């Protein structure tokens, strides 16, 4: 059974067709890189798969749930890292993650290990999120996703703002998730990094998918930095 199955899906933001007809089938344990120019619709596609947007037309099934009807069920089983971090500024790092854990019915102990996993230093655990640096904040948000061990990971530019160590952690996280059988969709402009990770490269332009390359080879390929674009 495919994890994501979109057929001619159209999604409107206001009146703008941010997705203008997407066909996409993703199977379990795939790591799909979404690439494409700014404004192509990558973020919209991720938010759509997370069950946050309603399809205007077309059919869309994620994790076996139809997005026209049972979006809440989808939301419970995906993990989304967006451009914004969806954290409460006034709560500390730990409090934020504990809230997430409780709300998602996960044992509280997972919080500590998720923070360790993302390399959030102990000094920061009791700092209010509003005071973190951009990169620290994104690490915490990533820890929030990792915490939930979702079946489907939706990562919107997970490397952005992270330092070298952070980038490696993300790569490790994605690799582990795929190894555990989870499916990962990564939107990214940092192709040199993500190409190594991805088993498949999907190009989004103008709200549709223009190329879709299953790239078994690239796993071994060295990061040449180029090809694509320019």
């Amino acid at each position, binding site marked *: 059974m495919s994890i994501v199955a979109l057929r001619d899906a*159209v999604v*409107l*933001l*206001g*009146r*703008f*067709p941010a997705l*203008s*007809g997407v066909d996409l089938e993703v199977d379990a344990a795939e790591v799909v890189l979404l690439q494409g*120019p*700014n*404004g192509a619709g990558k973020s919209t596609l991720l938010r759509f798969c997370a069950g946050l947007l*309603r399809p205007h037309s077309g059919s869309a099934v994620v994790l076996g749930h139809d997005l026209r009807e049972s979006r809440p069920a989808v939301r419970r089983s995906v993990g989304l890292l967006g451009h914004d971090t969806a954290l409460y500024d006034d709560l500390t790092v730990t409090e934020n993650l504990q809230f997430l854990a409780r709300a998602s019915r996960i044992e509280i102990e997972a919080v500590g290990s998720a923070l360790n996993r993302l390399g959030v230093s102990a000094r920061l655990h009791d700092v209010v999120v509003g005071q973190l640096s951009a990169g620290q904040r994104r690490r915490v948000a990533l820890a929030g996703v990792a915490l939930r061990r979702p079946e489907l990971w939706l990562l919107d530019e997970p490397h952005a703002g992270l330092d070298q160590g952070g980038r490696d952690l993300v790569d490790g996280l994605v690799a582990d998730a795929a190894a555990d059988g989870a499916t990962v969709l990564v939107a990214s402009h940092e192709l040199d990094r993500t190409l190594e990770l991805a088993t498949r490269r999907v*190009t989004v*332009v*103008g*709200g*549709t998918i*223009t*190329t879709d390359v299953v790239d078994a080879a690239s796993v071994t390929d060295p990061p040449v930095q180029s090809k694509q*674009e320019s």
Partner: protein
Amino acid sequence: MSADAVNTGSRTTRLLGAAVLIGVLALILLGFFGAPEDDEQRDAVRMIFVHLPSAFGIYAAMATTAVGSVMWLWKRSRWWDIVAHSSAEIGVIFCGLTLFTGSVWGRPTWNTYWDWGDVRLVTTLILFLMLVGYLALRSAGGDENAMATRAAVVGLLAAVNVPIINRSVEWWSNRTLHQKSSLTDGNLEDLTLFTLFVGIVVWALFFVWAMIHRFRIGWLEHQLRDIDLETALIQRRAEAATESSGEESR
């Protein structure tokens, strides 16, 4: 559809419009010259021919809004959403008219434009304010679907007022200057009663006429959006064709 796209009228609405015009004329004639003046209120009683039909107009409009709101929430039917919006707008007009005729009438009969203690007056005013809020919300813009859902909830909250307005004279009989239902207790003169019915019918026709027009405007806007959407979709897909080679440099 193309003929209708130019204007929102049709044979039916023109007939309706004519009927309303004739009805208003008849109402004026009957109201001023037909119906007898009241023993106590003298000529002021004639206000009832506008006042009561307007109040009933509120009821009709709010009932329509409530149904439309429920149907949007339940079926997410754009058709019903536009119905709800249209009738709420007309409801504001009726509500304003009721308030206006009521307070003008109040001057000669109750010796005041307004009484804060009269529950019916107060609840009518609350409804008016909520409807103004409803329109403010609608005009705040944003995503259409989100707006429809928000408006539907507010519309239902506003509609809850209607039964209260209607029943308030019974529930708070010591706190009202209004008389209780005068239609059913049967001490109106026959001609007065008849004129009143004429008024109600005329206002009902007006409601239907205005609803059809307002709804068609809303529906045309909606269709225009669909047409826009078609072109937007084409343009959006065209981006893919032109830009798969280069970046959006131009």
